[in-house]
Each structure stands twice: as structure tokens, then as C-alpha cells.
């Protein structure tokens, strides 16, 4: 090839975005399309765990080794997306000793640093652990924010010339002469107002190669090209607690099963998970027994979970894939390894490569594999640099600053902002006017919100995942309207209202599963504020055509004086 090839990547999750970044850094022209916001699919609904590999150290050692390698790399290049919490595999009296030893040996075999500590030592680290936890293995698990990670990859890709389009749905794959030559898309789906890229219209995007990085949707894209990709999506619940009961990733040291992990993430602890195969990655039942199972089972490790407040539960769908000949019955047996499917070889259809399986922790390595594959096809001799180059935001930054002096922010607020913004903190937080806090639960200021609006457009959910605004314990009860007020400065009122309603709907979706105890009281208060005080429920199109004149008004205007006023006339 003389000219640089144009590669189209379908899917704005960690894999797709990782590929876009890798290729862009190698000087390849990339266009990425995503049907929702970035991280719309599995990436946005994952547990937040940066694997040490410990969880695979017994049954899937290939995955485990990949994990520990990438764990080390991501700590370096994605510092502002990662919190190195450390991890524990804890053993309760009824958990098999044999497995404990297998786990320890397995970690060591895979090069995962692992030490045994006593139950007392574990409780020194984590005082809320159950008293009868006997012992534990320490591993370098961490917590990773998938939104921040993907956004940082996207920014880097764009900085190196990539074109990114969100809310852009692929409606067809273009096949000519027995090869895939591009995609047909519709812009501006499922969102009000502005997005990343084009806001509306249809487009045919021609490409020298198309990468299908759509995870659980891989089969759907394959269908458009007439190839069969048997993804076996499997759902898992994640229950979000109101506070961090633990600051360390807590794994149950027993053979894989449901409800065996707690991951601290930002201001919450996330309980997980279940593993139930589903037919459709978009429509599947969100069931109460799954939430109850998380609480009841994980309370065996951290007893206070039983009475603690949850603020929402959400489900993610694992994009599991296994080669058709393996045919596991139990979805928990399916490997977490990834597969690169070159459709030229497999299906006689050049121009398309799919990437399936995998997990977020190894996204960079998956992306490297695909990028290498693409470069090989086009004789491009450019090495992968993604393991060495820090992501935007992860450059040198320190959290030990005087935020009040520098930015007029209280230290806990400044610190949270700096944790999120990383090396962009100065750029964003230096403001001219007042910089009030919009979301008090997660310490998000106006400056950060406006920065996110500038990046992501008028979709308040896109703004939410960048800033964590409305992800705290009131779940937007007190800040949704403030976020809307901020957005109204950047776009028209109708778009703002639609975005506001979308945010409220999205926040409700997860809170439905937390309706008891303190959170039910919070939800009732939110409902009372939003319906009785704000009247959000009757605003807009809901009650068009109200006859204002039929109501009691001010009456004939009366001049007022300092002594008082005329009361409004009755009827």
C-alpha cells in the first residue's frame, strides 16, 4: 500500500477504543463508531476490577498471566484511572483448604505476587471483615474506572487524528465483490442534541478494513455480513453500596461461584456477581434474587453488608465466546481468553476481522494483537507504543496540593477532581468566575461539568460517566436539576429538558433494585422533590395545553406600598 489505509472500528468499548488509539499512534487513519456513549456495552457495566490474575490462577492460567502483565502496564500508563487497592483472597472456615493452597501455588506459577496473612492481619487491613475469616492471600488487585480509561484512550486517539462518532449506529456492512468495504451508519441515535462527531444523518463510510469490536453484539454485526459469530452473552449483577465498606478488593477463596467478590470503586463498594446466559444483550431480566444473593452471600465476608444501604444495582453482559467445537454447557466454564477471528480465513470474507471474548484488564493487549494483525495486512512497519506512552491525564501529577490556595476548592473536593482529571486538573480547574459544587456527593464542580459537556456534548449520561456527577448517594436527587441548569448554558432548552429526562430515567433504572430501608427513604424524598416541588413529572410535553386562565391569579394589579400589600383576591 502506498497510502495509509483507513480502518473502521465498530464498537466504543475498551477494545474498540484501545484499537483506535493503538492504530492512531502508529499513524494509521482510523474511524470509530459507537451506537451509544463510549462504554455503552460491557465496558460501562463491568465491575471495576483491575485483575491481578488471581481469580484465574487455578483454572485459566493463560488468562492469569496476561492479567498480571497488563496489570503492571496499566498502573503505569493509566495512573489516573487506577487505584491500587490491593486484593485479598479470604478463606472462611467452610472454604476448602485444598483450594487455598492451589490458589497460592497457582498465583506463584503465574508470577502473581502472593503472600499468606492471618485472619487477624487481614482484619487489621480491613476491620469490617468477618471475625471468622481464618486467613487470606494478598494479591495486587486494583480498581479501575472504565469510563475514565476509555475516555483517555479516545482523547489520545483523537489527538493523533482518529475520528470518533458516538450515538452512531451501524445499519449495514457494505460488501462488494465478496469483501467488506465499509459500513453504513445513522448518526445521532438515542440522544438529544449534540454528541461526539456528527449529530445526525446517514453516511456510508468506506474502509480498507473493518474491525468488529462490538463484544456482545459481535454476532449482530456478523449477521450483516452473513457470517456466524456465536457469542454467548451471559449477564451478571453488580450491587453498588452507598459507602466503601472495604478499601481492598475482597475475593472469596473457593472455586468459582456467584457472589464472591467485593470491589471498592471511587466512593462505593460493588458486590458481584452472577453468571446467567441470556439471549439478547440488550433485553434480559434484572432479577431480585440476584441482588439478594449478593447481599446475603457477601455478608458472610463482610457482615455489615447485610444492613448497609445499597444505592442501585446494574447488570453487565459478558461477551463470552468459545470456538463452536468446545460447546461448554455451563457458561462459567467458558474461557475468558480472547479470540481474533480473521473472516478472510474463517469465512472467505476479506475486509473484516472480529475480536471476541476477553476482559477489560487485557484490553490493551487485545488491541495490540488486532493492530499488529491489521498492520501486517497492509505491510505497515510501526511498532506498538501503547504500553509505554501514558494516557492523557496520567502524566505527572500529584494529589498533594493546596487546592484552596490554587483553585479555591476545599481539599477533599479538589482531591477528588484531581483524581479524576489527573494531569489535566490545572487546565480544567483554573476558572475565572465562581466555581460552585454541582454534585456534592461526588465533589464535582461546575468547571469539571462544563469541561465534560465540552467533550461529550449534550448527553447528560455521557457527562455523568466522565465526572461521576449523580453517581453518589443521592443518585442525582439533588444535582440532576443543577446539571440540567449547567447544560442549559451550553444548548437550547428543549435539548436540555430531554437530556435531563434521560438522566433521570437512567438513574431510576438502577435504583429500582435498591428500594428498601434508607435508600427507599432517599428515593421517596427525591420523588417528592422532583414531582411535588420541581414538577418535573408534568413539565414539557406531558401537560401541553394547560388552560392557565382558568386558575386563580394575582387579580387586578394593585400598587404596593411599604406598609404591606393587597392579598391576592379570592374567587
Amino acid at each position: 500500500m502506498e497510502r495509509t489505509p483507513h480502518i473502521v472500528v465498530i464498537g466504543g468499548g475498551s477494545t474498540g477504543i484501545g484499537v483506535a488509539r493503538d492504530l492512531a499512534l502508529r499513524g494509521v487513519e482510523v474511524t470509530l463508531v459507537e451506537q451509544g456513549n463510549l462504554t455503552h456495552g460491557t465496558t460501562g457495566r463491568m465491575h471495576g476490577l483491575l485483575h491481578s490474575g488471581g481469580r484465574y490462577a487455578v483454572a485459566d492460567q493463560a488468562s492469569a498471566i496476561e492479567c498480571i502483565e497488563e496489570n503492571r502496564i496499566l498502573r503505569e500508563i493509566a495512573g489516573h484511572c487506577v487505584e491500587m487497592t490491593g486484593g485479598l483472597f479470604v478463606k472462611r472456615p467452610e472454604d476448602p483448604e485444598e483450594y487455598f493452597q492451589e490458589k497460592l501455588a497457582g498465583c506463584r506459577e503465574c508470577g502473581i505476587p502472593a503472600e499468606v496473612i492471618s485472619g487477624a492481619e487481614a482484619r487489621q487491613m480491613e476491620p469490617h471483615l468477618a471475625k471468622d475469616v481464618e486467613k487470606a492471600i494478598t494479591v495486587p488487585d486494583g480498581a479501575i474506572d472504565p469510563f475514565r480509561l476509555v475516555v483517555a484512550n479516545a482523547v489520545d486517539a483523537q489527538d493523533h487524528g482518529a475520528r470518533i462518532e458516538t450515538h452512531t449506529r451501524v445499519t449495514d456492512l457494505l460488501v462488494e465483490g465478496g469483501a467488506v468495504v465499509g459500513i453504513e451508519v445513522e448518526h445521532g441515535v438515542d440522544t438529544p442534541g449534540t454528541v461526539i462527531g456528527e449529530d445526525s444523518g446517514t453516511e456510508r463510510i468506506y474502509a480498507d478494513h473493518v474491525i468488529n469490536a462490538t463484544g456482545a453484539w459481535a454476532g449482530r454485526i456478523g449477521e450483516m455480513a452473513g457470517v456466524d459469530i456465536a457469542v454467548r452473552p451471559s449477564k451478571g449483577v453488580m450491587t453498588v453500596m452507598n459507602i466503601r465498606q472495604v478499601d481492598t478488593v475482597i475475593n472469596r477463596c473457593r472455586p468459582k461461584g456467584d457472589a464472591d467478590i467485593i470491589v471498592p470503586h471511587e466512593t462505593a463498594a460493588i458486590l458481584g456477581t452472577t453468571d446467567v446466559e441470556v439471549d439478547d444483550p440488550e433485553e434480559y431480566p434484572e432479577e431480585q434474587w440476584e441482588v439478594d444473593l449478593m447481599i446475603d452471600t457477601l455478608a458472610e465476608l463482610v457482615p455489615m453488608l447485610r444492613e448497609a444501604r445499597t444505592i442501585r444495582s446494574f447488570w453487565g453482559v459478558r461477551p463470552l465466546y468459545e470456538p463452536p467445537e468446545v460447546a461448554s454447557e455451563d457458561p462459567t466454564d467458558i474461557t475468558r481468553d480472547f479470540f481474533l477471528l480473521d473472516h478472510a480465513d474463517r469465512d472467505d470474507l476479506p475486509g473484516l476481522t472480529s475480536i471476541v471474548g476477553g476482559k477489560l484488564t487485557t484490553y490493551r493487549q487485545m488491541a495490540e494483537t488486532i493492530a499488529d494483525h491489521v498492520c501486517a495486512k497492509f505491510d505497515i512497519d510501526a511498532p506498538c507504543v501503547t504500553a509505554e506512552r501514558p494516557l492523557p491525564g496520567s502524566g505527572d501529577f500529584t494529589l498533594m496540593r493546596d487546592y484552596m490556595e490554587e483553585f479555591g476548592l476545599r481539599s477533599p473536593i479538589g482531591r477528588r477532581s484531581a483524581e479524576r482529571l489527573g494531569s489535566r486538573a490545572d487546565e480544567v480547574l483554573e476558572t475565572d468566575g465562581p466555581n460552585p459544587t454541582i454534585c456534592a456527593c461526588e465533589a464535582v464542580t461546575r468547571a469539571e461539568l462544563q469541561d465534560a459537556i465540552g467533550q461529550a456534548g449534550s448527553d447528560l449520561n455521557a457527562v455523568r460517566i466522565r465526572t461521576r456527577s449523580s453517581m453518589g448517594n443521592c443518585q442525582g436527587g439533588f444535582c440532576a436539576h443543577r446539571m440540567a441548569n449547567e447544560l442549559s448554558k451550553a444548548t437550547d432548552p428543549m435539548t436540555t429538558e430531554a437530556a435531563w429526562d434521560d438522566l433521570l430515567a437512567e438513574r431510576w433504572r438502577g435504583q429500582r433494585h435498591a428500594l428498601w430501608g434508607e435508600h427507599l427513604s432517599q428515593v421517596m424524598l427525591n420523588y417528592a422533590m422532583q414531582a411535588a416541588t420541581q414538577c418535573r413529572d408534568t413539565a414539557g410535553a406531558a401537560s401541553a395545553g394547560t388552560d392557565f386562565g382558568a386558575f386563580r391569579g394575582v387579580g387586578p394589579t394593585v400598587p404596593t406600598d411599604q406598609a404591606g400589600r393587597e392579598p391576592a383576591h379570592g374567587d
Partner: protein
Amino acid sequence: MAIESDVLVIGGGLAGMMSALAAAEEGASVRLISYKQSTLRQASGLIDLLGYLPGEQRPVVSPYEAIGALPAEHPYAILGVDRVRAAMDRFDTTVGYDGGGAERNTLVATHAGGYKPTFRTPQSVTPGALADGGAMLLVGFDPITDFDAPFAAAMLTEAGVPFEVHGETLPFPIEQASDAGIGRFAALIEEDPAVPATGRTLRESIATAIGAVLGEAERVGVPAILGTQESASIIAELEAALGVPVFEVPMGPPSLLGSRLEAELHAALDRAGVSMELGNPVVDADADARISTVYVEKNHAQIPYAASEYVLATGGLVGKGVGSDRSQVHEPVFGCHIPHPADRSDWYDDDVFGAHPFARFGVRVGGDLRPQTADGAIEYQNLRAAGSVIGGADFAKEKSGSGISIATGVAAGTAAAEEAA
């Protein structure tokens, strides 16, 4: 040994206060015990009688007429419109709100750009009525983030209000730390200090700034931050400076309008000789068919209080008069029965503003306002309920919360005093 009274009201919210007042005015000795301050401080400060019928999209114009269309389990249907009207009359004579005696709802702007049907308004809100009136200017202050005047004005215009409405955002004349709370702004406005380097006071500066953008507007609305005790004189001062009526737009929590209403009710209770204790919960009771004594907990000690008649006005899910866990819903003080679906996935609607069963959780009562067991028997002969602890109404969707509290409160208090005599 116990601290005694004829009537003991448990819960110091709007329902509890109206109940205590009604009982005292019937001549009973009344004690009011409240664990917390009332939820009036979280509500808008408006008095909503009935804004929307269940399932209807258009607001109600004449609430007394609409009551007849309510389902039988609704507290208004249980009371009957005559008792509701009598309770509102009593409210009108107790509290200096506008609209006394009126039969129609008025419409007011919300801080989020919506419009709300309500029945009685504080004097500071009334000139902002949306049914008629002259061109309106809404003014917001930076950095108060809860009210964006231009956005609210745009939404009201879209809703079709019958006058011109514009919005402006002005900087608050005295620079504050950017996370200063509503209480701080209100305190400053009340104190009215000099604004550095201008030779003007704060209120003068506000008036001047509004005057500069007033244009053709015939009335001005600001967020409800005009002081806590002296709002009337503050408004009068602004009106004199601007030459047009000035009104407040009710805000959400913390609601200064709600606090002012609470203060007015406390003063009425004081005049009526009601004894009040705020700060400790009722945690236990001695009872068989009748309640003889309740116990108030102060840290580890339990102090006994006894009365002939009791009123339970502990609130709903927000006030915590209704509690829940993963498998059930309960009334925590006396264990009165609260009807609810066994499966908690039936407690809510999938739509954020759908018809949520949880919004109607509460005890079930008959016309005598005494909570009933699951079989319809009376829980305790000398216990009545008032306010949002009573189920059967979604006050948030209906915009009926304060009306239900007032109506059931007055009815319960009156009945309790009559029994105790």
C-alpha cells in the same frame, strides 16, 4: 411515674402540629413530641390541597369539586369534603397565607421551570401567580445553582404562560465561597451589610442590579432566599426601590419558605399552650387494647409519657414513620399494619414518574382515623393517625401532601380532644 397530658401527639410535622393545635383549641392539655424537625423544611412551603387527580395529565382547577373523583381509600375520600374544607378554614385562620377562603387553585412557577397547582401561598409567593398578571422577570444569582432563571423562563414560555417572561442571572453582590449554602445567602440578605467599595448596602445593590435589567417587566421573581424572619420588610424595600411587585420562587431543600411556615406554626402552638419536646424518639409503649404509656428515648434512658388519647403523625417514608427492609414494610412505633405487596419488585413502577405503590404506603384508617389491622379491626382504641403515615395517596404526583396533613391532622386532633374530655 410519667409526664402526663390529655392528648399526646407523636410527630411534629405539619400533620402533628395541626393536630396538636386542633386538640388544644378544643380545650385538651396537649403535648407534642417530635424526634426531628418537620419535613416542611424540605418541602416548598406551599399548601397543596389537590393538584392532579390520579392518572390525569391536566391540573385540577377546583380541588373541593375534584375530591369526589378520588378513589375510596384516599384520605380525602375517607374524611369527606366537609371535614377537608373545615380543616382548611382552620388553617386559613391560623397562618397568614394568601388565598384564604378561595376555592380555586393557583399556579406558581417552580425553581426547575415547571408550574405547580397549589391552594394557598405565602405572601411572598403570591404575586408570581401564572394565571394572569403582567410581564415577568425571573432573576437568579450566581453561584446559587438550584435556580437558572433564563432556563426556567424558557420552559415557562414553552408551557404557554399568558404573559412575557424573561430570565437573567446576576452575580450575588457580595462574593462568597463558591459552596456557600442557601442559609448563608439568606442570612446576609437579612443582615444587609455594606457591599465593599460601592457605598451601597447589599439590598440596595441587589435592587440596583435588578433595576438595570428590569426592562418592561411588571413583576420580578427571585429564588426564595429573602431572609428567614424579616422577609416581608425585605420585599417591601425591594418593591419600593424597583416600583414593581417582587415575589419569591419556592425552592427545594433547604426550604426557607418551609422554615418560615414551621416558625409560624410553632408560635401558634405556643399561644395555644401546647407543650413541645423536640429531639428524641418514641421507642416503646405499654399497650393492650389501649395505649397507656409511651417511652421516649434519650440516649440510653427511657422517659415515660402518658396520655388518654394519642395521635400518630410520624410521617411517611421520608419522615420515617414508615420503615422497610428487603422483605417488608412496617410502622416502627406501634407496629400498626401497613398493607403492601409481599414481593418488593411490586413496590415500584419501571417509569421514574410512574404509579409507584411505595408512594402510597401507610397505615389504613377508617373515618375515625384509627389505624386498622389487616383484618379491619382497630389497632388501638385510643390511637389515631394523621398525615403521610396514612397510606392511600401519592402526594407527590397529586400535589396533595400538605392538604392531607392539615385535613387529617385537624380531624384526628379534634377527635382525640373530644374523647379525652
